[in-house]
């Protein structure tokens, strides 16, 4: 059996949520919009999964109740930037096994300055005990040092990372839902205030409040524009945090992900990779094999990404659209499904296959979770 995404929805991303905004409302808005996109009602849903850092004290069941969902399948995922792939992996199996027929995957967060500070101070035990007291407020410094390692290993320069940020901003110009859409020049990127050397402002995602959701069903056959899920793979704690962080867990699961999908990385017309920092775009495209192993990374960025001959993060990615907490993991899945369903508006591209990756949960020095999924357009 094949499982397909037949609807996507977002709760508008915003840097400055209106007073009184709460996480449950934000997620519910994304769910409502995804159901409307799929032509379904809440009563049609029998499976629900959610990921959020700020949903507490509520859990998935509270949200289901408050949305009036009567379910035979329910899950909550805690893996941040990798949560979409994790939820998708479980949901596909649940539909195949007959545990549910219509599953909504959702994620969202109220991520104002206070919520962000709370999140990064107590992200996990290792952060609370060994990083926050340094002091370190969020992962920028860790990814600054990872970027330095990657620059040395791959011979990349600030300009190379800048081309990724500048190109994603070009895509964002055509995404009304992105929080930053004004053109960014390479000079502006290079001259931006330093956050943590070598990272500047445009290397770091802007936290936003927002939500994302998709609707999954068993494939209905022709007549419904949809994004068929060809494969989902996940990797958790692949290297015990004992490496340099330049390889993600994708390196170990990509081969199986492509085999399951029945296509190779050269055949994808769209890559939506988790872009918490430009260095992680580079790392994931290489681990997925989308950047051919024999190709020079700087040349690949210049020839394929910056020219947009390979569309990467066509929503503008988190770097331009914003990082909505745990919804950041769903962001690329929503964008890939929209593109494959022909619903991407002015930034619509022509692609039959897309690869989506998730990455996240910094345990101590870098992210420990990675997911990949391969999608195919069908109608």
């Amino acid at each position, binding site marked *: 059996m094949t499982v397909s995404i037949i609807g996507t929805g977002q709760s508008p991303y915003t840097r400055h949520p209106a007073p009184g905004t709460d996480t449950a409302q934000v997620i519910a808005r994304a769910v409502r919009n995804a159901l409307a996109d799929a032509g379904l009602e809440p009563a049609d849903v029998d499976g629900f999964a959610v990921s959020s850092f700020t949903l507490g004290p509520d859990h998935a069941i509270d949200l289901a109740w408050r949305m009036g969902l009567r379910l035979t399948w329910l899950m909550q995922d805690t893996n941040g930037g990798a949560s979409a792939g994790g939820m998708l992996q479980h949901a596909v199996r649940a539909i195949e096994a007959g545990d549910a027929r219509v599953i909504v995957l959702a994620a969202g967060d109220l991520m104002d300055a206070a919520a962000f500070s709370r999140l990064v101070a107590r992200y996990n*035990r*290792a952060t609370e*005990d*060994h*990083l*926050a*007291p*340094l*002091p*370190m407020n969020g992962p*920028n*410094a*860790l990814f*600054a*040092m990872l970027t*330095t*390692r990657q620059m040395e290993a791959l011979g990349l320069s600030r300009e190379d990372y800048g081309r990724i940020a500048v190109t994603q901003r070009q895509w964002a110009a055509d995404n009304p839902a992105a929080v930053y859409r004004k053109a960014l020049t390479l000079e502006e990127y290079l001259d931006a*205030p*330093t*956050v*943590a*050397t*070598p*990272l500047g402002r445009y290397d770091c995602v802007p936290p936003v409040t927002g939500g994302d959701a998709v609707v999954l069903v068993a494939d209905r056959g022709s007549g419904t524009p949809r994004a068929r899920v060809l494969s989902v793979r996940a990797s958790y704690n692949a290297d*015990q945090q*004992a490496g340099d962080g330049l390889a993600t867990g994708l390196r170990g699961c990509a081969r199986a992900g492509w085999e399951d999908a029945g296509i190779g990385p050269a055949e994808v017309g769209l890559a939506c990779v988790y872009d918490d920092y430009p260095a992680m775009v580079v790392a994931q495209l290489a681990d997925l094999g989308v950047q051919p192993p024999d190709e020079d990374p700087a040349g690949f960025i210049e020839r394929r990404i910056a020219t947009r001959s390979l569309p990467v993060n066509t929503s503008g990615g988190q770097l331009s659209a914003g990082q909505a907490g745990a919804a950041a993991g769903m962001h690329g899945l929503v964008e890939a499904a929209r593109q494959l369903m022909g619903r991407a508006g002015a930034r619509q591209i022509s692609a039959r296959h897309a690869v989506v990756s998730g990455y996240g949960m910094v345990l*101590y*020095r870098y992210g420990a979770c990675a997911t990949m999924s391969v999608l195919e357009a069908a109608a």
Partner: protein
Amino acid sequence: MSAIIQACLGCETLLFPARLFCPRCGQEDFAPFSAEHGIVEQTTRLAGGTVLATLAIEGGPRVIARLTGGDAAPGQRLPLTNDPNAASGVHAYIPVHPNVNEDKP
């Protein structure tokens, strides 16, 4: 001057932050270990001037520290400390939970 990390009693693997089971041998018995030095691998200077570093402990894990008492370059060997107010000279400060400090030999 030193920083406390974790040593597996089964296979002597050095770990930080502390684990529940040894990732190498699977044992669950550990002892505190005083690591005295680390080699600076990367540093990053934050907007406010703070310098953080990744250091490799000889024969052990990589740790994240704040440099106190001055700057350091990659390749430099620095004394490690759990004391943010370490004595004069450049040190790599590694915060530990107060409960860990109580175990300090």
